[in-house]
């Protein structure tokens, strides 16, 4: 699928490892070195202490829907409606904002089990999205 080029993620020094991994079909989040806590979205430091001790770790891509909205009308330049915005909670803990694909909007429920998939939206960007498991 294509998206408005103006919406493409702006990779930076901090986030480049994440986007590099998605091109290989791997989903990364951050782990705080000192505590082992997982962190999302990525930053160059750990909250709340601004400690620079942070590392990347691969997660399973298995998640469940914690909330969603089926968008029927939007001023946004999205190519197709309806589409499903969602927040999913990864099995490992962190939550991510995402879009659900390959799903009947009427069938989406909080608690739905989903797995990560990737949409190529630019030469260097594979956007993680989620689809129902099974």
């Amino acid at each position, binding site marked *: 699928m294509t998206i408005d080029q*103006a919406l493409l993620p702006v990779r930076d020094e901090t986030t480049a490892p994440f986007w590099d991994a998605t091109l290989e079909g791997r989903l990364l989040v951050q782990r705080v070195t000192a505590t082992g806590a997982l962190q999302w979205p990525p930053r160059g430091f750990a909250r709340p202490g601004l400690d620079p001790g942070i590392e990347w770790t691969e997660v399973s891509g298995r998640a469940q829907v914690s*909330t969603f909205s089926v968008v029927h009308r939007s001023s946004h330049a999205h190519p197709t409606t309806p589409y499903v915005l969602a927040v999913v*909670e990864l099995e490992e803990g962190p939550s991510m*904002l995402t879009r659900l694909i390959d799903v009947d909007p009427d069938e989406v429920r909080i608690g739905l089990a989903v797995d990560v998939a990737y949409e190529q939206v630019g030469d260097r960007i594979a956007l993680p999205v989620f689809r129902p498991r099974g």
Partner: protein
Amino acid sequence: MVSFAGKAAIVGAHESPRRDAPGVHPFEIHAECVREALADAGLGIEDVDGLCTAAGDYAEGGAYTDVLDLADYLGLQPTYFDSTDIGGGSYLSHVGHAAAAIASGAAEVVVVTYAACPRWWPIPSPFWDGLQWPAGSGQFEIPYSLSLIGMFGMLAQRHMHVYGTTPEQLAEIAVTCRANAAHNPEARFRDPITVDDVLASPMIASPLRKLDCCVVTDGGGAVVVTSAERAASCRRDPVWVNGYGEALGSFNLTDLSGRLTSPVAVSGPRALGMAGVTPEQIDVAQLYDAFTITPLIALEDLGFCDKGDAGPFVAQGGIAAGGAVPINTDGGGLSSNHGGRRGMYALIEGVRSLRGESAGVQVPDCRNAVVQGLGGIMAASTTLVLGTEAA
């Protein structure tokens, strides 16, 4: 904390009657509102030493140095100014900051002003219907085609899941606001609606339907804040700034499901505590209502009902005229006016309620009012407690 409760008052207010202003630059509406708010107070432009606005969002005419641009346009050289921008409730923070500045002697007559013309504004928003760029943490949100209503829809969906809130209960808020708007000749929509009407309106972003969403209007408003000493010689009885609280919460949406308790739960108790009043002593609440879910959560976090109980509270008439805490007596953003930032209009209706001059439904013997501002996806909160007597 040194309290400035009751040290400053709102002595002038003006809401533009406009709802559609084709071809009018928002700064012209600022001029109209500032002029009329000062006239209401019995003051002139020469008395003003402070100017506050947030005028850099879509259809507001300004850019990132908005207060500088507007001050020059109006011909003011203020020595106190504030362009704090935390979204739709920014103007309430401006009032709180101005009251503190006035109490400290740093300012004496401060104008807080808002205007927007979204119905005709030709320049597209750079913000992609979100509130951030697709960079930094926004690179993990904006590319998903964020829809403003979809974000509030996700919040509402979660509230329904956790607390059993129903679409009918959300709809009741829209019905109440419309019933109030029926009494406001300037409201954008005045014809009564029912819960069934709301549920039959088109789905925009589930579970929010068209009538769960605010109107879009051109317009503006301004208030004048001054010291107790100066207020004594103003034309109108002062409306006292007795309580003020503000708080920032989560901005990114990844933890949206944790936002069912909003920063209103921080700013509300601070404001009520400063004013020395309890929720039971509040006669009217003007609650930021971009969508039905926003006042629903604010009712809980301000302590008008228990957490999770706002649905039944609303369904049982708690917010209607004559209820425990009537809200949005002018019709609110859901029916009267909303230009993108409702905060100023909620504030002005709070002032009118305490003057006995509500634009819609007047609460009898109204002495204490809460005005609740919100910004982002319930990410920022400002609460004001206003009163007819100084705290």
